[in-house]
């Protein structure tokens, strides 16, 4: 089960290192986008969005359909992201806002119901079979050769988009008026609303933004991964591991943890393909034993 020789031979050839690191990075970046949405929503609203994976799935399927209609991947990605965001705002207004401050059980259950409904709706509209979008023509270019390894242009695009969005999220929360209001409302919503700010609107917008992040991840994943109803749950569990390792509420922590997990997955698949999931849980258990709040977590959004 453990082939450590395979890992060491891979690590000693630059081509293999480049290939594994790039595939690790794209896994990590998708995880980061989903996990940063989870962590933002938790940091501000103190709600664990167990349905977050559904917005990733919706992003992918919306992008797929938009791509079929328009033929342009960029339009498709924008449509996937915005569609997931709109769905997120609706979900927050109609359902989640009714369980704010209630126990975790209520939040869990409404999210469970939402997952059941969206998975089944996806089956109604797109069917239960695996769908593949394929690499869009914009990116059907010869791969870059870096140190003997091949790197498809779409991978670079994916990583660049994720990094830009990550920095954008940090700036949005840390530097803008929107971020200041949201952070203040996270600590004392009644005080903020006493200042004449409509807190529910900001909460809904933040929730929608978190869902846009998941939708972007779905739209970016659509060309490189196959789509299936229920695809949201796998990435949800992994993004939870990322948020736990990185520390709830910390975007930088999520970035760090996503890269660690992405590399573990891609390099682990060389040496112990069956135990990659196990290795992720092992890392999580170790982090929780030595740093129960995660690598960069402080229990609050800062």
């Amino acid at each position, binding site marked *: 089960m453990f082939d450590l020789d395979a890992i060491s031979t891979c690590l000693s050839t630059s081509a293999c290192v480049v290939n594994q690191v790039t595939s690790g990075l794209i896994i990590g970046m998708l995880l980061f986008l989903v996990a940063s949405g989870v962590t933002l929503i*938790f940091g501000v609203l103190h709600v*664990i969005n167990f349905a977050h994976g559904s917005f990733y799935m919706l992003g992918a399927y919306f992008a797929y359909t938009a791509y079929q209609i328009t033929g342009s991947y960029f339009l498709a990605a924008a449509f996937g992201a915005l569609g997931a965001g709109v769905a997120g705002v609706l979900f927050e207004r109609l*359902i989640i806002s*009714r*369980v704010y401050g209630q*126990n*975790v*059980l*209520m939040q*869990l*259950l*409404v999210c*469970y*119901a*939402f*997952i*059941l*409904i969206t*998975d*089944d*709706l996806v*089956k*109604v509209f797109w069917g239960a079979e695996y769908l593949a979008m394929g690499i869009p023509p914009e990116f059907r270019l010869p791969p870059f050769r870096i140190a003997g390894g091949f790197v498809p242009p779409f991978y670079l695009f994916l990583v660049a988009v994720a990094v830009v969005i990550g920095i954008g999220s940090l700036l949005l929360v840390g530097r803008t008026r929107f971020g200041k209001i949201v952070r203040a409302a996270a600590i004392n919503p009644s005080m903020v609303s006493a200042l004449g700010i409509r807190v529910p609107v900001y909460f809904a917008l933040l929730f929608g933004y978190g869902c846009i992040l998941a939708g972007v991840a779905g739209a970016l994943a659509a060309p490189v991964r196959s789509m299936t109803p229920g695809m949201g*749950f796998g990435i949800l*569990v992994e993004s*939870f*591991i990322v948020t*736990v390792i990185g520390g*709830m509420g910390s975007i930088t922590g999520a970035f760090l943890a996503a890269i660690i997990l992405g590399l573990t997955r891609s390099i682990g698949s060389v040496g112990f393909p*069956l135990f990659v*999931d*196990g290795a992720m*849980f092992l890392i*999580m*258990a170790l982090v*929780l034993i030595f740093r*129960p709040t995660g690598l960069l977590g402080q229990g609050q959004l800062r």
Partner: protein
Amino acid sequence: MNVLLEFRRDFLLAIAGLAVLLLIGLGVDHPWPRDFLTSIFAYGLLAMSLNLLIGFTGLVSFGHAAFFAFGGYTFGLLLQSTGFTGAMGAWSVPVAFVAAAGGTALYALVIGAICVRLSEIYFAFLTLAFQMFLYSLIISWVDVTGGDQGLMGGIPRPEFLGVDLSNPYDRYVTCAIVFVACLMLLRVVTESPFGYTLRMIRDNPTRTAFLGVNVFRVKLISFVVAGAVAGVGGVILALFTSGAYPEWAYWAQSGEAIFMIMLGGLTVFLGPLLGAVLLRILNDVVQSYTTHSEIVIGIVILAVVLGLRRGILDFIRDLWVEREQSSLRRAADDTSRSAGGEAGR
């Protein structure tokens, strides 16, 4: 003394309940009530044991079905191994049963020791993560578990002490006895001083710790008992389906169990069992009308959670308590009014 009297009443009720179950199962000629009730035994134990964590200890576990699957797979794998049945002979079934329950308890001890220290959200996460770990193990370890096909080929059930579990009547009686015995165990645990310590931890862990209770140990014991009972539920389902399937370890199974608790009521002992019955009936009815049953189930969950905001038995109990209180208040008002009237006269 009072506690003992209460237990004697519960014990008599359990015997009566068992008698009713046996009457239904053996008296009706059709297999349907037997099959329906056996699946209720399995899922009922899953939901009731999870409620020991959620309703009594305040631990919202989202990975409880892992123990359900663990029990079922351990039982099935042991009986399918020719080495085991060869060594145990006629005692294979009872030994496999004890090994499945004990093995699940051990597994719950390991998982619980890691998870129980964490606060509610981290706890829910981590139990979910461990459950998905078990699920991926079952799916990927095809040589042993049969992967996504499940444990195929049936489970051999050698006769022991004159009990032949391949006979549907013997199987039903055995499952009913095991089920009622597990309910009694859960009842004893929840009504004992230990059970009241659990409620205390649920309501205020800090104060409980100040009273000198080792909160970690008490929570862990509760976690292990709940895990073992869920494992027995898995054994019953493995006996019933003559196999074991990876869906038992899938997250949706845990979600379903939580919904059973929520639907039936989490503050009344038998609430989760009612929830299990209602959900099975709902499932059967919806599936006979549409293939997209998940949409309907999801909408029902939303209606119950957002509309009723508590389980059915919780709702009835609250109504009851309210009526008692208002009649007490009315009685108090009457006496004070008549007392006031006398003073004025």
